[in-house]
């Protein structure tokens, strides 16, 4: 082997296994072991399923059923809206008993704590509609693949819930080189992806291959934390005959953030304000890959997901393959909850999760973890001390910001400095607030400042628009005035013009309108006729949109 070859081999090895360094990060206590003791358990069917129409980010789906309808398992009960939306399917057979506003766990940037939900009362028979599995996804072309994924109602299963079809569609007008499957799961408490890979690595790898075909990328890398040894072993075995690569990443939070994982895998950074697709990279969650496997290979739409039930208030924390729409209180019962010890209920992890007050909220497509936390794990927040600029936050920040400076500018509402110091590069991971010895809720300050700045920008834009319009209005008035003053005086006196206005005849106007309507109607009917002809001539020709 020549030296050059050796060098290539060495760099290839480096490329394959070594993750790039990323700045910042913290190592919080993980609390992951207890929920990994058990295998993934199925859930029994509860008495009522609550299916929100907006389980994802974007436009809510539109209900296709009405109260009293009987539905079968896998049946589409709400269709995706035009864009940025995903469909909802019935997780089991039963009757629709209500479509009404119910409490839900809000998504990260949606403040509504209740939304329109379909209430399904299961009949216990669990009778399903016919499925159309496609064991060889190579037979499907790109658009069919995307359509199937859209039909299955898949959105990002990692927690953000971005509609998967819309993300995959980025591959149409972007050149995607690399697909990264995010199995890092860096947040404390959550073990859903780890449990999934540990038990169903082959399915995840197949799902990754499907997504690879759906993005038309040349490479696919699965990123996973080095602490998940069981899952890595299973993945290595499952990847033997696959082109998908594996990259083991150092355990720290937030290694699984979109931008951080891209940096760890490629060494590249996503330019500020751009999407990863702009540098040829797409990310999908491991859970999403599994959902894609279910959708294509098994033909099943997304009616269940893996959810971690954990926290010290539960006797037997574990991962469930839970039906969507199950109230989390039902899952708590299954795990043996100690209600008196439960202090907090958190949907998501302890770093970026959302506290819910109502345990009747259902599991949705984005619910990766539910924590029933005790006072022992979540001591009540101490009072906020002054910032001593110790800089621990700057060391922890994965975006290399200076959180201590952002805080002082947030407090003084110095919007220009906030933007100069990169407030909008903050990913709100909360690493700064975690390490803060003064216990300052930094992320809350940043969120408040961000919304203030956005509101201000919006109002500025609006006032600029009104100012423009007003200036144009004044210009026009002046112009008209100038024109009239420049015109030579009329031959006829003003009084003579008036009768001309009285020439206006209602009948005349009505006749003109009727003429116009008739013209439009004939054109329309001609158009419809020609379309029908075209369709009968050539079945594949697309219809004319009206």
């Amino acid at each position, binding site marked *: 082997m020549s030296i050059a070859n050796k060098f290539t081999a060495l760099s290839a090895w480096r490329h394959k296994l070594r993750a790039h360094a990323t700045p910042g990060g913290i190592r919080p206590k993980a609390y992951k072991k207890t929920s990994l003791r058990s295998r993934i358990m199925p859930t029994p069917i509860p008495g009522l399923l609550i299916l929100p129409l907006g389980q994802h980010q974007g436009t809510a789906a539109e209900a296709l059923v009405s109260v009293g309808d009987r539905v079968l398992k896998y049946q589409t009960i709400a269709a995706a809206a035009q864009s940025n939306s995903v469909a909802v399917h019935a997780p089991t057979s039963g009757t629709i008993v209500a479509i009404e506003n119910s409490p839900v766990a809000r998504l990260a940037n949606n403040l509504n704590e209740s939304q329109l939900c379909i209430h399904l009362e299961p009949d216990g028979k669990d009778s399903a509609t016919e499925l159309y599995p496609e064991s060889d996804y190579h037979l499907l072309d790109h658009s069919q693949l995307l359509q199937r994924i859209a039909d299955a109602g898949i959105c990002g299963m990692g927690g953000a819930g971005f509609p998967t079809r819309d993300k995959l569609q980025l591959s149409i*007008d972007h050149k995607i080189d690399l697909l990264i499957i995010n199995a890092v799961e860096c947040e404390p408490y959550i073990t859903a992806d780890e449990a999934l890979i540990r038990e169903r690595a082959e399915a995840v790898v197949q799902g990754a291959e499907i997504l690879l075909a759906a993005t038309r990328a040349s490479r696919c890398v699965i990123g996973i934390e080095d602490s998940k040894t069981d899952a890595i072993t299973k993945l290595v075995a499952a990847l033997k005959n696959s082109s998908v690569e594996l990259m083991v990443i150092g355990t720290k939070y937030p290694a699984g953030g979109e931008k951080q994982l891209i940096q760890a895998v490629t060494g590249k950074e996503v*330019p500020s304000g751009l999407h990863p697709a702009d540098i040829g990279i797409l990310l999908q969650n491991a859970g999403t890959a599994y959902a894609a496997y279910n959708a294509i290979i098994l033909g099943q739409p997304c009616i269940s997901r893996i959810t971690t039930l954990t926290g010290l208030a539960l006797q037997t924390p574990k991962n469930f393959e839970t039906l969507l729409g199950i109230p989390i209180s039902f899952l708590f019962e299954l795990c043996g909850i100690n209600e008196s010890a439960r202090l907090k209920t958190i949907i998501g992890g302890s770093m970026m999760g*959302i506290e819910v007050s109502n345990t009747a909220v259902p599991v949705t497509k984005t619910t990766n973890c539910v924590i029933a936390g005790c006072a022992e794990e979540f001591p009540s927040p101490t009072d906020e001390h002054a910032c001593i600029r110790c800089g621990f936050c700057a060391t922890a920040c994965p975006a*290399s910001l200076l959180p201590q*400076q952002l805080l002082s500018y947030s407090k003084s509402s110095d919007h220009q400095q906030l933007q100069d110091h990169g407030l909008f590069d903050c990913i709100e991971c909360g690493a700064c607030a975690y390490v803060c010895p003064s216990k300052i809720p930094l992320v809350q300050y940043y969120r408040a400042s961000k919304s203030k700045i956005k509101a201000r920008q919006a109002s500025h834009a609006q006032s600029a628009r009104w100012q423009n319009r007003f200036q144009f209005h004044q210009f026009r008035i002046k112009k008209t005035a100038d024109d009239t003053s420049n015109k030579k005086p009329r031959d006829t006196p003003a009084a003579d013009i008036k009768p001309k206005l009285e020439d206006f005849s209602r009948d005349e106007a009505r006749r003109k309108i009727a003429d116009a309507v008739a013209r439009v109607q004939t054109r329309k009917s001609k158009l419809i006729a020609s379309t029908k002809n075209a369709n009968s001539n050539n079945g594949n020709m697309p219809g004319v949109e009206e």
Partner: protein
Amino acid sequence: MTAPGPGSPLQTSTQTIAGIMQLVLLALVPGIAMATWFFGFGILINILLAGVTAIALEAAILKLRKKDIRLHLGDYSALVSAVLFAIAVPPGSPWWLVIIGIVFALVFAKHMYGGLGQNPFNPAMCGYVLLLLAFPLEMTTWHIPNEIVNSAIRIDSLGIGDITSDQQILSPFSWLGLQQSLVLTFPFIARNSQQLIDGLAMATPLIEFKMAGHSALLTAWDNGLSWFDRESATGWELINIAYLGGGLLLLYKRIISWHIPFSILLTIGVISSLFYAPDSAAIYGTPYLHLFGSATMIAAFFIATDPVSAATSNRGRIIYGILIGTTIYSIRVWGSYLDSIALAVLFGNFCAPLLDYYCRPRRYGHLRRGLVQRPNQATEQHREKGIGEL
């Protein structure tokens, strides 16, 4: 802007400001112990006096400012300022000197700017510099009771029985040594005028080192003297080593970052090496003595690293350290003040806001100088071609 309600992250670390300050105090203990061993109870009396005054003052000001006294007093920050100030003030200084300094440090340099976290200058050093300017004589004289070998004191007058010799060397840890120190600090407790001695008035120890030329530790080693013997004049070197140890503890615990101490020590080391020549050591001093003489280590690890008044980004911290190191050396060698830590640190404090502004780290997704990266060329070309081959 009011404090927002709770939200993510719901999990936080257990480290608190009080914990950090306690660790800083702990890291100071070896140095203080060593200083007490060599220079007597004076330093402990200073610390006690400054500490008690500081806590009382802090509580009073917090009450005036209508703040939660227990919450803010519980952060130990006033105590740390007081201890750092007390270490800097010469042992055996009169009580009013210490109190004037600590009042200026806490009231004027800290709370008048808005309390902890708002002060642009290091409070302890502000107090020290005020005293240095207002009372130069008191601030450059060290009173060390164990050196009262040839003083005219009549031991009997102190009311202690069996010691009669005028030539007796007093241990600073004897009852008499303690009494001596107390009398130095609180002259009004002396029962007669003869007790109002001032021990040996001794200039700041750097002078001694300027003449000495090389390490007292090595000299003591060569002469077979114990390092911990007060006669072998190893005091300042051992004190510096003790503070270095405490500083390394803080580094190890990640309470302070390496940037400031490292750049200060490196700067002093490099500059003093550049100017060092064996025949001019009496003027410029040796690099070793610049690092281990006087209060270099305590400045580098404890005083300049005060996060509130220091530069906050890592690059800023390095430049901040270089500025302080250069200033320390310049004032020592070319300035009129013998020791210059306080002035140098205040100079660094002046520059810190500017350093913070110009030394921001490169943020994720940005090029240097705040430029925004553009999408790569392939993507641009792809876009220009329009929709792909679908």
